[in-house]
């Protein structure tokens, strides 16, 4: 499993806390594993909850072109990169 950066670890903790994922520790989330569908197995309910948590914490709005490309926020790594690119 690829190593997590500090920011990725913080994001992993946010995901787990927001979505009440039992039995998953921040360290368990492989930054290059899919978050939705496969991998962590998040669904559309989670995507919306997570988007709200990210808005509240990082003051940015997630965007995707349509319901299918929200999978572009595919991994912890790409999601974190999106947040970093769009913050401040």
């Amino acid at each position: 499993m690829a190593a997590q950066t500090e920011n990725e670890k913080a994001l992993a903790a946010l995901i787990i806390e927001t979505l009440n994922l039992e039995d998953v520790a921040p360290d368990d989330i492989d930054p290059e594993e899919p978050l939705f569908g496969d991998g962590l197995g998040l669904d559309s309910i989670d995507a919306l909850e997570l988007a709200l948590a990210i808005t509240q914490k990082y003051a940015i709005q997630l965007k995707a072109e349509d319901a299918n490309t929200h999978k572009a926020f595919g991994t912890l790594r790409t999601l974190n990169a999106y947040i970093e690119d769009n913050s401040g």
Partner: protein
Amino acid sequence: MAEAAALAEQLPRHAYVINLHSDRYRYLRAFCAAVIAGQCTLMPPNRLAHTLSQLAETYPDSYVIGEDGDEPPISGVAGSAIPAIDPEQLCAIAFTSGSTGVPKPNKKYWRTLEEGAKGNARLLLGSDIGELNMVATVPAQHMWGMEMSIMLPLFAPVAISDKTPFFPQDIADAINELPAPVALVSSPIHLEALLRSGVKPNRLDRIFTATAPLSRKLAINLETTFAARVQDVFGCSESGILATRNPSTEDLWNYADFFDLDATQEGIRIRANHLPEDVLMPDIVELVGDRQYRWLGRHADMVNIAGKRGSLADINNRLRELDGVVDGVIFARDEQAEHLAGLVVAPGMDVSDILRQLKNRIEPVFLPRPIYKVDMLPRQETGKIAVKAVMDMFNQIRASKAN
């Protein structure tokens, strides 16, 4: 329509087509092309590979369109009139998950779709129809999306956006692209997310919501925040759109005058001229007066997660089909829980293995969360599983994990 007619010439020659376009304009164009070519569009309940291959097996004379974008570009040719279509032509089949494990087909003939669309225009838009510009968050492959974003624009002065926005910012952006008056076609889960995000479109005149009843609190909040007229819409794949209400003031649903509803032994029977046969409502309702009903809940087998309808029997069949699963049950915990829960007997398997296999067969929203391994399910002598015993077992495990 000219583009659709041109595309119709180029379609592979099969009886059935599975339209997976995510761009709404392309979906509409391909759907019309299929109708012109005399082909029936299959509407799978989800896009899982397993579902699609099961569908292809049941309908071997079919092909998929819209997956890899190898279609003629949009030329922007001006529209022309809708050609005459045989009212008895089978144009679409909407599938709902059934307790037998095979999706249940609901046939839509042209006259059902056309008359339904015209009826919906009367029911939802009334006589104050000027032009309305609409954006929908629901995909065209879902009946709510099909009726509002594909069929309605064909027969009413409604223009539909090609976008299918997901996140609140996407929804606001898509609305802001449209000239006034603007309507949003969506569902409670997206509307709630939109409200909580604090994002506001420049202008929103009407909101149509369906797939689950909208709470009064949410409705009032939407009206106040967006100054939009909110309409809650009730429908099912079997009958199409059936009823509407103002969710901020009304508890009862008002059903359209082109439907007859009767209480029978098996449930509420829906009859209408444009439906090929009578259908039974999948919900439990109490008829009130001439044209109203009160919604009481779903039949025990049905669940609604994130606006998606599923059959618990179907979900459980799929769980028990998995290699290594000896026994198991997936169930709805309570109204508050957002997800289903599960207990499974699968010696030698990790929970993650079970979920990995299950993901191939059921949609993400129906995956149990959490799912616990147990040695044995609390089955009675008859072999039946008692709901209470399952809940007790589940709660015990959950409590012990919290300690």
